[in-house]
């Protein structure tokens, strides 16, 4: 019997993972992607040609990025919504790359796992006033085999022997990482020393960056144009290379520049029969399939379901949108930590994930505060630095030249960026803008969002700790922090192009999963409660944001969904060809830190110094807080 045909909407993290697994299981798969195809040759044995380089201008010119002229979004605050303000900003609101491969084409590739407690927040820690906290309908253990498999496909580097016991208790691992860590970045090493002096523990940040040849891709050479840039040498694992490429080789069909406008329903309203879309010439088309997988990202999934008039019997569709509140700690150094040189950051610290239930939480009238994982040791490239100075009031002329010569924010800066957990709120919602239209004539997504007081309190609580780490780093001469509250004040709030949440690329929670159809949009597998054959395979289904970069979890959830759809279990022993390469640790049990560092040294061809062997990896977010 022929397998059911599948349409996948969106070729990013979730869509590509689902397409790969479903194609592998023998389903006919058509992938509709609204963005351009900028990786010619993807899905052919020769592999793609990369028209991306160490070019700081192009990302600002809507190349892989969504063009807000064609596809604007609008936003407003909760307060504005209650005052009847339709929108207070139009333009780029949490835009993700609009291209084959989606956001992961230029992601920072940081791939921490969610922790056990992220899936059971309500039962473990109780409700939060004003937030829509709920348990996920699954557990860490349900997701763990898919985490393993996705990490193997992506080629994630890391070192389980360097991870704190508390981390492994929350996110247990059955295997060592497929690849050893990159050479540790100097800036991260300095901050890691500062952290250690305060009792915190930095370790190599798990990331989908090849530290040696993997899946046909070369090792990273630390060029420094990482987060927000497409890798010119293809050293990063991502949706396009690690999933879509293989799905296409296996016979899946990709249709770029096809914008899906509607899920077409059967008269009974219980089943979808296909989708309507606009093709590259602008003509309206229909495609039929037995199963529809939606993965155009949390904002666009909500928009598409609203445009289709389906999936909202719970009234929750579009609600509970979450970003992350990034909180910065900044260290300024007498010398030059060259924090831009490397894959954004190579270290992480997860001592601030929380929950913190002490006086700071009580003072805010909250049961707890949660922060998140930190990117440790990142910095700025030249043009980004120059544009930041030029964005300050009346800053040009000799002032600008002097600032660049002194280069405080590039040559002398290294920072930490905390991926703070954002509470779900029903009043934070994606709906259809009543007036603004996109190039296809469709209502654009409107994002109504305000931070919860949890985020303000948590940011104010953890920010000084980030700053203390910077201050304690060897050679630091000044330090600071930028809590969310200050940011809101300084930038004019959400909606300003400079505002924090509007500038993140972590978008979650508009079609949350759950057992109860009255309180959730999809079932525990991602299937719409209201429609029998429409599945959601992106960050929309998140019930909580966690304090972790979300993409690994998006991919794991989507893979789990696809395997469920295909009626097959996870692969028992995923084993990409390079996994057993010489020098790799076969198991975690008897391996010492020294052996692990030795493996890393073998892989990178360098003898690591004792200092760096002790602290390992340094990682930090780019200022855009994009990953």
């Amino acid at each position, binding site marked *: 019997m022929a397998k059911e045909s599948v349409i996948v909407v969106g070729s990013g993290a979730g869509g590509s993972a689902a397409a790969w697994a479903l194609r592998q299981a023998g389903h006919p798969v058509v992938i509709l992607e609204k963005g351009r195809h*900028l990786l010619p040759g993807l899905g052919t044995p020769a592999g793609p040609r*990369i*028209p991306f*380089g*160490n070019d700081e*201008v192009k990302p600002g010119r*809507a190349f892989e990025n969504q063009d807000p*002229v*064609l596809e604007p979004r609008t936003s407003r605050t909760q307060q504005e919504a209650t005052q009847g*303000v*339709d*929108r*207070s900003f*139009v*333009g*780029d609101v949490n835009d993700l790359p609009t291209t084959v491969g989606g956001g992961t084409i230029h992601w920072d590739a940081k791939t921490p796992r969610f922790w056990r407690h992220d899936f059971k927040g309500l039962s473990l820690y109780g409700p939060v006033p004003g937030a829509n906290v709920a348990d996920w309908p699954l557990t860490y253990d349900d997701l763990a085999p898919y985490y393993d498999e996705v990490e193997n496909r992506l080629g994630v580097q890391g070192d389980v022997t360097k991870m704190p016991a508390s981390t492994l208790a929350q996110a247990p691992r059955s295997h060592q990482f497929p690849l050893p860590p*990159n*050479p*540790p*970045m100097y800036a991260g090493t300095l901050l890691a020393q500062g952290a250690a002096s305060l009792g915190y523990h930095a370790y190599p940040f798990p990331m989908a960056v090849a530290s040696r040849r993997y899946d046909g891709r070369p090792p*990273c*050479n630390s*060029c420094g*144009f990482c987060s927000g840039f497409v890798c*010119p040498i293809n050293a990063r694992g991502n949706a396009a290379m690690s999933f879509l490429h293989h799905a296409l080789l296996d016979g899946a069909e990709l249709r770029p*520049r096809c914008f899906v406008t509607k899920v077409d329903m059967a008269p009974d309203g219980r089943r979808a029969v296909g989708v309507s879309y606009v093709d*590259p*010439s602008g003509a309206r088309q229909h495609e039929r399939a037995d199963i529809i997988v939606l993965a155009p990202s949390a904002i666009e999934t909500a928009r598409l379901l609203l445009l289709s008039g389906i999936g909202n019997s719970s009234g929750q569709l579009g609600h509970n949108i979450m970003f992350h509140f990034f909180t*910065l700690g900044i260290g*300024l150094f*007498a010398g*030059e930590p*060259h924090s831009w040189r*490397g894959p954004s950051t190579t270290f992480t610290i997860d001592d601030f994930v929380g929950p913190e239930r002490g006086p700071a939480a009580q003072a805010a009238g909250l049961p707890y505060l949660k922060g998140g994982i930190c990117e440790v040791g990142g910095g*700025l490239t*030249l*043009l980004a630095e120059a*544009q930041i100075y030029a*964005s300050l009031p*009346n800053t*040009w*002329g*000799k002032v*600008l*030249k002097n600032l660049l*010569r002194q280069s405080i*924010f590039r040559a*002398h800066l290294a920072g930490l960026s905390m991926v703070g957990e954002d509470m779900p709120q029903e009043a934070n919602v994606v709906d259809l803008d009543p007036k*603004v*239209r*996109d190039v296809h004539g469709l209502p654009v997504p409107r994002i109504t969002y305000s931070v919860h007081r949890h985020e303000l309190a948590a940011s104010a609580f953890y920010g000084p700790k980030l700053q203390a780490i910077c201050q304690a780093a060897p050679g630091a*001469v000044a330090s*600071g922090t930028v809590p969310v509250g200050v*940011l809101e004040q300084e930038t004019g709030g959400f909606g300003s192009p*400079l505002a*924090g949440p509007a500038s993140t690329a972590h978008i979650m929670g508009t079609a949350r999963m759950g057992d109860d159809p009255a309180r959730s949009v999809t079932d525990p597998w991602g299937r719409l409660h209201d429609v029998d054959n429409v599945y959601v395979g992106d960050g929309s289904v998140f019930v909580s944001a966690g304090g972790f970069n979300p993409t690994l979890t998006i991919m794991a959830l989507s893979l789990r969904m696809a395997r469920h759809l295909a009626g097959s279990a996870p692969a028992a022993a995923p084993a990409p060809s390079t996994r057993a390469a010489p020098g790799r640790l076969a198991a975690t049990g008897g391996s010492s830190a020294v052996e692990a560092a030795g493996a890393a040294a073998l892989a990178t061809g*360098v003898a*690591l*110094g004792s200092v760096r062997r002790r602290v390992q990896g340094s990682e930090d977010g780019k*200022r855009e807080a994009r990953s």
Partner: protein
Amino acid sequence: MVDRRTFLKAAGGLGLLALVPATRVRALLAAAPAPGQAGRFLTAHELDALRTVAGRFIPGPPEDPDPGAVEARAAEAVDLYLAAFTFDPPLIHAGGPFSNRAGATHDDFADFVPLDRLAELGWRIRLEGSQGKPEREFAGPVTGLQEIYRSGLAHLDQRAGGSFAALPGPAQDLILSDQTDSAVQDFVGVALSDVVDATYGPPEYGGNRDLVGWTVNHWPGDTQPRGFTPEQVSNPDPQPATPALSAKAAAAALKFLPALAGRPAAHAAPWAARPGYERG
């Protein structure tokens, strides 16, 4: 580099579009218009005025010891950007993966990437404005960058009571920093960002001539495919490029930290003029 005369001869003999793209871009850069000459979009007078503005934004000798936007030919790069659609493919997105500055033999950056139908529409709206064309006004009329520059430079002349470029530098600065003149500030917001891009971005876009924007700031620019060695990544550089940062200077910089936490403002917000796009 091909000199201007050779370029013109080649362009005349072969037809501009017949040239190999990378060669053509190199030739274009070599043939940048001199003072008093018209640009590809801007008139001679407008280009001279923009050159002057760029020099106030990022001054060079004799005012400043290091090369600035005039030496980088930033105004000429902005003119090329405004005229992007007089080339095919338009000079908007440089190619990849490598320039020829860090170990590769061919300059892929100079092979500009063609736009598709929708991308072209977006860029024509952004550069040329909506011009009353229905297919460009799905969300209302848009003022394009060409018009923003043309009217902005005209406004500077008006403020100067004649030619902005003919005023002394300090008088030019007074006009450019006049916070009470929103027309000036709107123009400064767009032009400063573009001039910064042109001065410190890759030279294939027409600015950063002879890499002056990078060398003066000890910036390596694009380093692929060479990258950095593990030693360069993990250890301090033997010779720091900048003077040691004092605690006092560092402390003074802290008040600007919030600027690090978001993205720089959009270079231009062409949608901002659309009805329904106003704040509130």
